[in-house]
């Protein structure tokens, strides 16, 4: 509004920077909100869409929590992948719908970041079907992995697990977050309509359930094309 509200306005505006206020929000206000309005954890990966352009170049940001986060444990995970990387890449090639994929070690997670076309479960299923047991070594090292071992005999569980560890992708337009939350809670979107002002609060609450998220769908240099269409145009075969 205006500056002429004097000291009170200035004081209120400066609240977010004040130590006592930060303390109060962090330890009292937010926990109270979360208790009063719990947000279910939103599912990972892109949402289903009927738009062809939404069904190519979909992002997977898979965060696999390591059981042993000591340098030794982290090194083991790196080794489990490094030893098999050729087979894994050959498998991705056979899946046919993958634009790119890479592995990262970030904090306590082994991450697989990839861009793929089409349905998520088809991608993961075809991947497991081709690489077979290669991923199993890694499964011993990540939380919840034993239940999925061997992956080939637990394809459905493996797909569900990957989906649960794929980052939630916040909608490109922030306001749509409210609709996604409505849907997750079984309400019809925007009935009753939301106040735009409530967005920051809803985001804070959501970040309680989804600690890490992907910000929007990301940038694409050649939107709308599948990996095979690109290969086809380049004449490298698909």
């Amino acid at each position: 509004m205006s500056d002429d509200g004097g000291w009170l306005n200035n004081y209120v505006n400066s609240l977010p920077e004040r130590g006592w206020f930060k303390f109060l929000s962090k330890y009292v206000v937010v926990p109270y909100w979360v208790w009063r309005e719990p947000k279910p954890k939103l599912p990972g990966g892109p949402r289903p869409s009927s738009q062809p352009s939404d069904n190519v170049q979909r992002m997977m940001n898979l965060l696999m929590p390591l059981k042993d986060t000591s340098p030794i444990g982290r090194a083991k995970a790196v080794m489990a992948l490094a030893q098999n990387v050729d087979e894994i890449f050959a498998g991705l090639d056979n899946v046919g719908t993958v634009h790119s994929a890479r592995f990262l070690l970030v904090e306590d997670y082994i991450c697989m970041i990839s861009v793929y076309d089409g349905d998520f479960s088809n991608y993961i299923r075809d991947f497991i079907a081709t690489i077979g047991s290669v991923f199993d070594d890694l499964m011993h090292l990540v939380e919840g992995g034993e239940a999925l071992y061997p992956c080939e005999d637990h394809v459905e569980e493996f797909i569900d697990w990957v989906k649960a560890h794929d980052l939630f992708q916040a909608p490109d337009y922030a306001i749509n977050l409210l609709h996604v939350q409505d849907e997750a809670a079984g309400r019809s979107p925007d009935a009753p309509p939301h106040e735009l002002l409530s967005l920051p609060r809803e985001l804070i609450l959501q970040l309680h359930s989804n600690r890490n998220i992907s910000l929007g769908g990301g940038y694409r240099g050649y939107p709308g094309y599948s990996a095979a269409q690109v290969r086809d145009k380049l004449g490298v075969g698909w």
Partner: protein
Amino acid sequence: MNAAFNPEELQGNILRGYRSNMVRHLMLEVSDRAKARQFLAASADGTSSEIPAITRSANWKEKPKLCFNIGVTFEGLRALGTASRDLDSFPLEYAEGMAKRAVKLGDFGESAPEHWPAPFDQPDRIHIIASLYSDEEQYLDQTEAQVAKAFTVLGVRNGRNLPDNKVFFGYVDSISQPRFRHVFDPAQIKVDEPKDPLGTVLLGHPTHFEGMLFSIPQPDVLGRNGAFNAFRVLQQDAKGFEDYLDKAATQLLDHPKGDLLLAPEDEKRVGKDLDRHGALREVVAAQMCGRWRNGVPYELSPDAQYPEKEVSPTNYSYTRTSRCPAGAHMRRVNPRGGPIVQRVANYSRRLVRRGMSYGPDFDPENRDGAERGLLGNFIGANYGAQFEAVVCDWLNFGLQDPEITGTNDPLLGANVPETSAFELTLKDGGRIRLNGFPRFVKTRGGAYTFLPSLPAIRYLAQISD
């Protein structure tokens, strides 16, 4: 008997079709658990004269007057008292049910579950779908009355075989089916396609992918030897389809490359009594489906609906230079051994199809817009790996071939005239692109059901609260 399974313990409509003339699907609610369980027990037993016996997968000598099978929805398992621990062991797609999978299945716009008529407007109330097959209506009526004593009948859908094994849109159907190891099916003696492992359709058996198994829902007796079914009520706009063939043929009459699509000397091989316009209509219909309307595979006979030399109705594959368009219905839903982007997926997304038509006869000479279509059952061991995989990435969207990616099945995809596209193949390898066609098939209901084995039905019958 054989080592892999006991056919006496399977529901009969999974491995073989009955080829009856009529079907009646009853959408049932379990309103009285005790009565429902009693019914299921007697039905699995098959000794009561008051309760229809579940038809088994036996090679009978004389076909029964009535065949009777059931599918149970996830809500149905719950209504019958299945423990929540066991419910949790069923796959997500099934637990959510067909209506919640709408976007993936192309059920939006007019096909959205919000527009489905009763009883499909209340999917959670549909617990069991009982399917009655017979050649005579009296047996259907009699059995329906017996079923109605134990369940609330929420709705009924009647289907029938059209003459000459045709479906609306005029094609001969029920030609291609998966062929299973360990199963003898006299209808498939001349088929020489690769055999599919039993785990394609039955839970607990090897699948197409070596070493890969689909989980068996628990307890084992409930899940093993069961199958999952996608029941679909698919309305076919027969008038819209024939009108579109007129329009497309008219455009093709003046197309500079029209002769490469249909050489004038081949017109009579498409149909003795057809003029060029009529023959072009048939070529478009044939390329859209992958078969001429009389059933002859387009791939084996691209110039003639009536080839001089007989061609196999089933034994062929596709190549990079196939005349059967990559976008044709059949090639989308089963690319056979042909080139596809998902190289590992050839022959893996197989579906057993059992369907019959519903609604009044259609006269192409005197076209009306009455509601008619197909009551389709698409059966497999895993929705995600088969039915949904086919529908969301291949039938719609066309991810399997860069030439068709972004387009939908011309016969039944979720098309809108503004964006629809289908490429006809020409003799010289060229293409003619067709645009502007609408969606010819709309979804009017359906459900995901589990087809339990006989031991599983007995298990469900004896659960106590």
